[in-house]
């Protein structure tokens, strides 16, 4: 469902449609009258886009069947058309469809995680002296060692957690470090475009940033995959056909929002 702030007929568009080169005439059909009623209707129903955003879930079991190449290309197109600061498009995508490379990346990450785990494992009487070391390490690498996925580090170190969950296709998202302002964010936006495009095709996706360990702490994979200046690994996206039906709305904690209006501040939950 389309909702525009402009009344029909206002703003750009209209007659120029005929001049558009083939392939670019993808604008939605002209808005019929009654946009005010449409806005009112929004009070009681969600738009299709909202539905997709609310129902999309990360997929963690994939079918073995490979994703057809044309679909991957289409997903990349969705990423290409993402907004970016100064239209700098500071990204590069690397598509990996060789299971050996995916397995190799997982193994290297597992080794680095094993090293992390050695520093951090203070459980058990024999290791309690490591508590101090672990606290310092966690403080210094607060993002990498955040408590939320903490149990994942031992799991990955033991090789018990398959990072890409058996996905047949993986897209690495690299940033151009010279990008305008905040290239990481631009890569994230492009990635979300790709994830939603993939979802609309019935594919499942899962963001995997754990492999950052393999690129950050070792040289081998950057060399093998030819990742060099100005590109740097940001995250990766596992893509494949999902097993089961993973899409459903699930409760989330509400987040307090500060709302400034009419000269006062209030908090909205």
């Amino acid at each position, binding site marked *: 469902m389309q909702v525009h702030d402009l009344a029909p007929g206002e703003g750009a568009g209209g007659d120029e449609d005929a001049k558009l080169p083939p392939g670019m005439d993808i604008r939605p059909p002209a808005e019929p009258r009654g946009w005010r009623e449409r806005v009112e209707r929004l*009070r*009681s*129903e*969600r738009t299709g886009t909202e539905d997709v955003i*609310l129902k999309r*879930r*990360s997929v*963690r*079991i994939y079918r073995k069947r490979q994703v057809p190449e044309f679909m991957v290309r289409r997903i990349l197109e969705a990423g290409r058309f993402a907004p970016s600061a100064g239209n700098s498009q500071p990204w590069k995508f690397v598509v990996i469809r060789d299971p050996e490379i995916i397995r190799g990346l997982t193994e290297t990450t597992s080794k680095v995680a094993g090293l992390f785990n050695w520093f951090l494992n203070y*459980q058990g009487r024999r290791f309690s002296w490591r*508590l101090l070391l*672990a*606290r310092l390490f*966690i*403080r*210094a690498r*607060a*993002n990498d060692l*955040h*408590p*939320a*996925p*903490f*149990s*994942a580090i031992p*799991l990955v170190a033991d090789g*018990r*957690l398959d990072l890409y969950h058996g996905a047949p296709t993986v897209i690495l998202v690299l940033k151009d470090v010279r990008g305008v302002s905040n290239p990481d964010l631009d890569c994230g936006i492009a990635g979300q475009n790709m994830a939603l495009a993939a979802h609309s095709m019935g594919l499942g996706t899962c963001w995997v940033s754990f492999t950052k360990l393999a690129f950050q702490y070792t040289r081998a994979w950057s060399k093998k995959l030819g990742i060099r200046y100005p590109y740097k690994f940001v995250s990766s996206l596992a893509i494949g056909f999902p*097993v*089961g*039906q*993973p*899409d*459903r*709305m*699930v*409760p*989330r*904690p*509400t*987040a*307090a929002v500060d709302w400034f209006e009419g000269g006062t501040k209030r908090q909205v*939950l």
Partner: protein
Amino acid sequence: MFVPLGRIPRYDDPREMRWGRVQFDTERCNGCNMCVRVCPASVLVLDAKKARMITDRTAQCIACGDCAAICPDGVITLVESYRFSGAYETRDRGELLPPRL
């Protein structure tokens, strides 16, 4: 990023870290194992053909809700999200709610 302030909580102490919690309607669970397979934190196990959460304190549910989403019978509900103390104190978060209009 370096965190200069706040005690780093002990990752295995339930007083300093509260993990997520899911509830099972055990009667209706048919033991299809889907939730156990999707759980990214590996905190679910199949026990006598019924799924349940590991009560061991090393089990660290991140309250993602993937199990609740994939369960074909809608047996699983996410009832609690995680909370941390000290340097990782969880801030500005309210109760668990489904999407609102």
